[in-house]
């Protein structure tokens, strides 16, 4: 976790002097001066973040921002941990079920630990890790590969893949660069789905890897905190009124009426006077039922109305990424199905926003951590009704499947227009392409990018890429394929206990990368200079009081630079001033180079050269001056933004603090749950252990017991080691294939022991050799899991083991009671 936190808090947008000062003038003749203003806009869009990340500045805003960053890093780390814990709990649950189903509960498995302990010797070697660094760099920065994988994988492969994608490769939930890369991955995936769908109606509604992807995304920190602010109050209100019965299904109300009548008749069925079971029509026509129903319908409508009002008024709180996905859905629908009616477009947006995001949280608020207690019977029903009505509002179905839902037809009509407006408003967010381009460039030059990742995440990803490499990139020389070739065959994943988390640095070994990438992204060194200059100016201005002479508008950058450079009171400001001066100089030189390139032509005389030289300098100066003016006004804007930023940061902090508190709580709960599981397992083991030893002796009868004594002690759970010849194993059907010459086979033998119920160590030996050829530790549930996932062969290098028989064999030989 420590690495994740460090990683998250390291400023990624900090200015990058090393690159800025690198000679990168690769301006071709096609470049013209008006480009620079466009670039400046690109630079502008990220410099806000750049200036924010500077640690030198120590004002309130900077401190608040530091707190915010810290919170975000904690939330990222914590939600990853929760995700892992949830998976462990699920895993343990299903393994326990497996064990019980196989009536082997006493031979249970080792508890699953909360943290994985480090083990030497299981890591891929240094060289391999370097390749993996490259591989994951490519995966992160060229999102199309992951996008393609999403469409190729089966649902069962999806879970662990998504974990790696959402919580590791793009695990920094609040980091703009990773977020943007993740979103551009979504874009490809969505586009693919729209391309390949034959049925418009099931688009985004069926369960597909893509839908899983998008919902996993909504469950990250920002989505979570939105749900809390948009829904928690309303849900808690309903939940707190646990005794309010708002059932409106006439059939169910009729049952209530009948029960009341039965009670009035003191339980005498014959005296009730109405039939016990009736049809929907009869129930709906019953006078008493209608009487009860009317006020309930009204109240349900009111409650739904308040949910809807809160949701629409929280528009601005919806995380950017989620709104951006809505925007993509709308754009793709319009592009691919131009004839689609507006209402159908809205219902598709709703199929994501309400069906996959809002409504699941309303009907099971407990699993979204919005309430503390699971809602009781009645609030649960009320929440379901609210979700059903919102669903009807978003989808506008032509037919009411349940006739009683027609009671809300009026409500739906009244609110439909507003719903559609809301769904459209969701889509009104800017694209991020300009800043993304710039970010990737910055990222390339950064040295401290790293992922906190487990070995098995690395290996599984490698396996998936290997399996699908043809579909991913047909070009043999693509970077992906080059690296895959260098890596060789993907090794199998490690046993759980060896699966440690490492900090994998990300870098690209492709030399020409920066330039190539820069070219592709159409970004120049000038952008870098401008960004840094802007950031430096903002830092200088934030170090002086607002009333200071250099802070007067319009800003005079030259004055600011000279003032700062000569400021004797603050060394760091002095350095910034000097930096600013040199940046201006560089900027001018760059312009001059560009202009000169453009002006040069082979057939010029000396005279002409002189004339041109003058013109070049004049035009460069003009360009430079213009840029300074643009830059000044951008900086002014930015300072204004910083003002409002102060307020925004304060409110962000309080909302994030509550998110962190909730997920930390959930974390405690999960750990508790895991602990109960583990203690349950320990219980079972103790029970079986108590009766074990005598039976172990009995079982040991026909076998060579090398550690006779220790296996008798009450405490030790050790059985064996027992020796088994290959013939014996073959007879049992355990050995499927030999990979050694026939005459050697009889020199092989196995030593097997069980140090505790359900855990076996199998060693393969060669006669005359003292060392073990190969040793492996097998857990009963590992074997069961293999069977379940239909892995029947286990490769021991020298022999291949047939898993079902191995399981039978071990159970027979090591039966404990």
């Amino acid at each position: 976790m420590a690495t994740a936190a460090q990683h998250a808090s390291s400023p990624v947008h900090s200015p990058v002097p090393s690159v800025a000062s690198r000679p990168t003038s690769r301006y071709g003749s096609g470049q013209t001066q008006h480009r620079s203003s466009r670039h400046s806009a690109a630079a502008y869009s990220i410099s806000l973040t750049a200036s924010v990340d500077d640690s030198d500045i120590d004002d309130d805003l900077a401190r608040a921002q530091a707190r915010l960053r810290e919170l975000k890093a904690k939330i990222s780390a914590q939600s990853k941990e929760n995700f892992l814990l949830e998976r462990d709990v699920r895993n343990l649950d299903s393994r326990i079920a497996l064990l019980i189903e196989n009536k082997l509960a006493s031979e249970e498995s080792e508890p699953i630990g909360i943290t994985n302990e480090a083990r030497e010797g299981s890591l891929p070697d240094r060289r391999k890790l370097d390749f993996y660094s490259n591989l994951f760099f490519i995966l992160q920065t060229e999102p199309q590969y992951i996008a393609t994988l999403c469409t190729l994988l089966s649902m069962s492969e999806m879970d662990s893949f998504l974990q790696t994608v959402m919580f590791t490769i793009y695990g920094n939930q609040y980091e703009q660069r990773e977020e943007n890369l993740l979103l551009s991955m979504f874009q490809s995936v969505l586009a693919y789905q729209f391309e390949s769908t034959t049925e418009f109606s099931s688009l985004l509604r069926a369960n597909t890897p893509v839908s899983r992807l998008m919902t996993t995304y909504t469950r990250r920190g920002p989505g979570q905190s939105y749900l809390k602010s948009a829904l928690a109050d309303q849900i808690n209100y309903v939940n707190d009124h646990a005794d309010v019965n708002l059932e409106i299904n006439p059939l169910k109300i009729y049952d209530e009426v009948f029960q009341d009548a039965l009670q009035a008749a003191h339980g005498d069925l014959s005296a009730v006077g109405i039939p016990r079971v009736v049809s929907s029509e009869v129930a709906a026509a019953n006078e008493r039922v209608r009487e009860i129903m009317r006020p309930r319908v009204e109240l349900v409508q009111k409650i739904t109305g308040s949910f809807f009002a809160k949701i629409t008024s929280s528009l601005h709180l919806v995380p950017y990424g989620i709104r951006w996905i809505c925007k993509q859905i709308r754009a793709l629908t319009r592009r691919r199905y131009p004839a689609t009616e507006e209402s159908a477009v809205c219902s598709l947006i709703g199929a994501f926003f309400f069906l996959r995001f809002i409504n699941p949280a309303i009907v099971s608020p407990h699993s979204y951590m919005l309430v503390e207690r699971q809602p009781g019977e009645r609030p649960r029903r009320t929440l379901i009704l609210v979700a059903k009505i919102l669903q009807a509002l978003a989808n506008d179905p032509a037919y009411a499947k349940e006739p009683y839902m027609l009671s809300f037809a009026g409500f739906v009509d009244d609110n439909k227009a507003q719903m559609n407006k809301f769904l459209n408003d969701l889509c009104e967010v800017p694209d991020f392409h300009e800043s993304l381009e710039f970010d990737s460039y910055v990222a390339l030059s950064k040295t401290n990018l790293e992922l906190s990742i487990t070995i098995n995440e690395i290996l599984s990803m490698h396996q998936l890429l290997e399996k699908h490499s043809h579909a991913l990139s047909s070009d043999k020389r693509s970077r992906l394929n080059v690296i895959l070739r260098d890596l060789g065959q993907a090794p199998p994943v490690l046993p759980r206990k060896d699966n440690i988390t490492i900090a994998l640095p990300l870098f690209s070994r492709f030399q020409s990368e920066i330039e190539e990438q820069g070219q592709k992204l159409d970004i120049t060194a000038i952008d870098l200079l401008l960004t840094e200059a802007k950031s430096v100016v903002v830092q200088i201005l934030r170090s002086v009081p607002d009333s200071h002479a250099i802070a007067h508008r319009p800003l005079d950058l030259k004055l600011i630079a000279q003032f700062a450079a000569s400021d004797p009171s603050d060394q760091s400001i002095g350095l910034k001033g000097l930096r600013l001066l040199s940046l201006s100089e560089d900027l001018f030189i760059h312009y001059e180079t560009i202009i000169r390139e453009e002006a040069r032509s082979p057939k010029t005389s000396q005279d002409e050269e002189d004339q041109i030289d003058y013109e070049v300098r004049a035009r460069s100066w003009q360009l430079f001056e213009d840029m300074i003016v643009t830059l000044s006004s951008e900086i002014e804007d930015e300072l204004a933004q910083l003002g409002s930023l102060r307020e925004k940061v304060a409110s962000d902090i309080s909302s994030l603090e509550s998110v962190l508190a909730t997920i930390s709580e959930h974390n405690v709960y999960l750990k508790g749950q895991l602990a109960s599981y583990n203690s349950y397992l320990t219980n079972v083991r103790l029970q079986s252990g108590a009766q074990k030893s005598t039976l172990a002796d009995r079982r040991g009868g026909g076998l060579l017991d090398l550690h006779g004594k220790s296996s008798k002690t009450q405490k030790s759970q050790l059985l064996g080691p027992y020796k088994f010849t290959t013939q014996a194993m073959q007879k049992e059907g355990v050995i499927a294939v030999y990979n050694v010459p026939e005459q050697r086979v009889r020199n092989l033998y196995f030593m097997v022991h069980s140090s505790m119920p359900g855990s076996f160590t199998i060693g393969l030996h060669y006669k005359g050799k003292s060392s073990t050829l190969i040793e492996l530790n097998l857990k009963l549930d590992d074997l069961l899991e293999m069977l379940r996932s239909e892995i029947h062969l286990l490769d021991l290098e020298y022999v291949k083991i047939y898993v079902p028989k191995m399981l039978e064999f071990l159970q027979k030989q090591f039966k404990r009671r």
Partner: protein
Amino acid sequence: MATREYNIVVLGAGGVGKSALTVQFSQGVFLDSYDPTIEDSYRRQIDVDGRSCMLEILDTAGVEQFTAMRELYIKSGQGFLLVYSVTDRASLQELIKLRDQVCRIKDSKNVPIVLVGNKADLAHARTVSFQEAKTLAQNWGTSSFYETSARTAAHVDDVFADIVRQIQRRESASSSSTAATFPVPPTPSSSSSYSSNGHGRNPSASEKHGHGHSYSISALSDKRSSGKRNSGRNSDLPVSKGGFEPKKKKKTGGLCVIL
């Protein structure tokens, strides 16, 4: 003659046609448009083998974000329709896990289940063969299997009649072993504690009996100790889908049954 009620729950992946199937059965209408379900309920009376049966059908959400609610549905149902679409292989695969979940929560391998392959009218888009699904149902032991079309109504009624018969069979089997008079009125301890009025589920009753919520280990060893299920050996190790809740003390003997 009194009409018996049967609580049937329809489960399966999103968009396979659970609602279309249920609405076709209960209202005789085919739903052409896709309106994802959150939770709907239907009722229809039919005659099965001359007996009048009231079917209480719960149509559930296939959209995976709602699956947290499944556990509750499974607890409340007596018979289950597991629906996939013959045009969608993944939807069949999802049912394997689902059936495990049903058996686990119901604490039995003999839960009334019908495997349903819907959209059989879409012959050109078929990706799952009849035989393949049939084999799966056979592996499940007691389950029956039908291919249906909610569009043409083919075999839709058969599915529901079959599940009713299965529930009846199971009840008569369990009631004869406890030597009760037939028919047996549902009581909290012998039936799956579904309460017909839907809101009156009595949690204290199920806690007291250790049924309903719990997953008794002894019952799982049905091959060896079949018929001993009610012999007072209910293990104190409850497993529910949501998780294990280990108890501090266990009655001795609970574990012996396993081996």
